């Protein structure tokens, strides 16, 4: 049985993925965290924050949920 992802968890997982695995500067982290506290779903986030999230998601991952996903060579 497939369980639909609740909207607020969808955003939470997306931001966990972003802030937990990428090297995001503290200033950007603070802006995203503050916006998240006020807007629990993606659609409710300000457009500027959504753009920022999409931009930062292009950064390389630096941590992994599953260690076997870690690439062999880290710089």
């Amino acid at each position, binding site marked *: 049985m*497939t*369980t639909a*992802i609740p909207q*607020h*968890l969808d955003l*939470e*997982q997306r*931001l*966990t*993925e972003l*802030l*937990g*695995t990428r*090297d*995001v*500067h*503290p*200033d*950007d*982290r*603070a802006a*995203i*965290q503050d916006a*998240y*506290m*006020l807007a*629990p779903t993606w659609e409710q986030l300000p457009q500027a924050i959504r753009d920022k999230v999409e931009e930062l998601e292009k*950064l*390389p991952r*630096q*941590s*992994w*949920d*599953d*260690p*076997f996903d*870690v690439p*062999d060579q*880290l*710089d």
Partner: protein
Amino acid sequence: MAKARGKLSGKALADFNAKHPRGSGGKFGTGGGAAAALNLPTPAPAVPHVNAPSVHPKSRAAQRLAAATPASSGTTTAVPVTGRARSALKTPTPQAKPVAQPSPGKPVVTTRPSTAWPAGTGTAVDINGANVGAVVLDPKTGIWMPFGNRVHAKGQFKTEQEAIDALVAAATPRKVTGPGLSGLNLTEVSVPPQSGTFGNAKFSHEIQSSGTPIGTVHYWGYGYTAETPSGQLISGPNGHTFRTKSQAAQALAAQHGITPAAKTQKAPAPPPVLTVSTDPEINAALDILYGKDAKGHTIARQLEVYGGLRRSQYDQLGPAEKSTVLGDLSFIASTSKGPNATKASKLVDRFTPPGTPHGQVPKQAIHIPPNVAVNQSHVTDPAGTLGLLSVKPKSQRGKSGDGWTSTSSGGRGPWGQYGAAGLMLRHVDANGEERFLMVERGPGISDPGMWQFPGGAKEEKETFHEGAAREVVEELGFQESDLDTARVHGTHTKEVPSVTVPSLQGGKVPWAYVSIAATVDRQLMPDLSTPHAQQETSDAKWMTRAEIDKLDTKGKLLKPLAGGQLQQNILTLFPSAPAQGVTARTNPLKRPSRLRGTPTISAPKAVTHKPSTGRNLVSDTASRDKLRQDVKQARSKYSGKVADDRLAAIGAMQGFDDVPTVVTKSEFDRLLASGDYIEAWRGVRGAGGGVNQWRPGRGGAVTNSKTAHDVNEEFRSGPAYYGNGIFGNGYYFATDKSVAAGYADSSKGSLLRVLIPKKANIVAHSAIRSEAQASGSQRSKAKGNSHETATLWDEGRFAAAKGHDAIEIKSNMSSSHVASSGKPAFNILNRSVLIVEEAP
């Protein structure tokens, strides 16, 4: 006439020598050298001499002292040393006292020419009349070096006085401070670094209690070990090294019964032994074990009663009682079918430590293909045989075996012109948990990145055992003596008939790879810094069976071992590890007899949380830069093992990776009622908990192979594994149970209940974020690709580096967030300070 030769150097020494030629009263001049340093001087030579105060001849103190001390006084003069030896030594001494009458508690330092060195190059140093060593001049370089008789003094100095100061400082016991040491009054002195056990120690300190040595602490660059005066090693948590010197010193103190309570007037009460339990579940079990339950012989009754025992209740039983419980359950698991066998099997798992082989009903995560075993020897020696793993001297090994072989048809055969051998080492800790030493193939050999047990090509005149032992020593940087205590249980041989190689006994034999199974008495620490190791080995790790299974499922095992072959062919050579304090059942098909006598159980232990161990590692720019560099070096050790290797590295530096304190439900509730703790929950989803639908291809906070119960049990007793989070990486807990429940699946054990000590080092997220921003603002965003720079950008890593145990996250939002109004969440960085409720 005796002169005040004392401590002179440089020009003063030359002047003195010019005025006072050599005679029986002095030993001046040049000659000899530092090469003689190993021959330390003997104390108190029977040579008339005069001691002058130990001051630099050009210092103001020396000038004042010279004025106060007639050069021809002929009296013995001593300098009392208090606190920092150097400053005290520089103090003029109108109140100086003779050696024979030192001030109580204040050591007196005196010096005299040493007879053990060429004239003029050695000065013996005494404290309270006892020789502690000498300082020696290298006449070629003009450098002075301290050499301690027993203590370890190091360094090279431009002046004799500085060398004396260093020797005195090394020989003066210092108070050992650190968490958990308050009230123990331990002191330490440097002693020569130990060599041999794990290589060469960076430094070693003898720990003393009231002046009596209680053991030695060694630092190996990655952790500390403690050694008793009799040479017994004391392991740290989980059989590893201690993270801090204070932890190691505390273990030595505990070994000698030295505790803060013992130092105060309170003598520890002997643990009460109860003959009658007040716990109805324990009593019900005892009635079965002692034949007092009329239905106690039935499977249904045993499963009912034993199933009602929690692990903590089982732990209160004596060894005979535990053994009988396991015997009953093994009998049921082995002779029954269906639900009874399943339940009995699960109960065996409950009562045996994590990682204990299941014995009669082993679990195998890997499907074993039939008929994979080839020429496997029998396990005829469960206890193991000593002395089979020696390394033959290089001159006796004959030709190197490195090189590919050829098949009879002219193709390329396997590596190793005389065959090859590998050694699978196992260690069983005090809790009965097994771990096996596995290595990741390095960049200089074929199949880099794949895992196997260590081994390689045998040389011409080596036996397979000798070849395997040598390969392990070479690849992992072990000492040959490290394998002296290895017990060999058996071998597995895989032959390739199409390739023949010279036999040790002459003639040709089929090429063979011989795998050897052996148990060692400690987890040997690999040193991968040697050039040989760096080429052949990228990583080495002591792994559980489950971790090896996981490598297999992920396709990370070397091909000849993959698909269950390692588990079936090699791991089966090892005997089952016995559970702690319980005799292994040798015949599960026989029901154990009932016990006789009076049941005894242990009283539950009073518990409290562990102290905070964190320090501020980023107090200034220099320390921040140092931490970044340290993390850069250390993170690779955790790559592929944890989610955030940088946080894991910082956590290990702080001692945050120690396990928390696990208590029973009743003890948990008692502690909660004390008002000293904050109750919090952690909800996790595991395999089968719907997580795959939520995060396709990922396990959320866990991997797909674990149940939620397994994940929470790993938090209690397994290696540290920090997760990812919006407010910094770490372990997330909610004080609102309903919030945590939203992250749990419906399985048993998916909600973990903990107590966070209010006295723990907790920082508000808003505060640590501001600090991280301030710190981060000093670094350009443009440097965002520098992971070293970004180490402190994450609030979890930054707070851990500052020594905080946890981050408190407050919110006014609804429960859709981890923190809800009035009920904060916590990002736990140091799990060791928590109290955790035992598994349901």
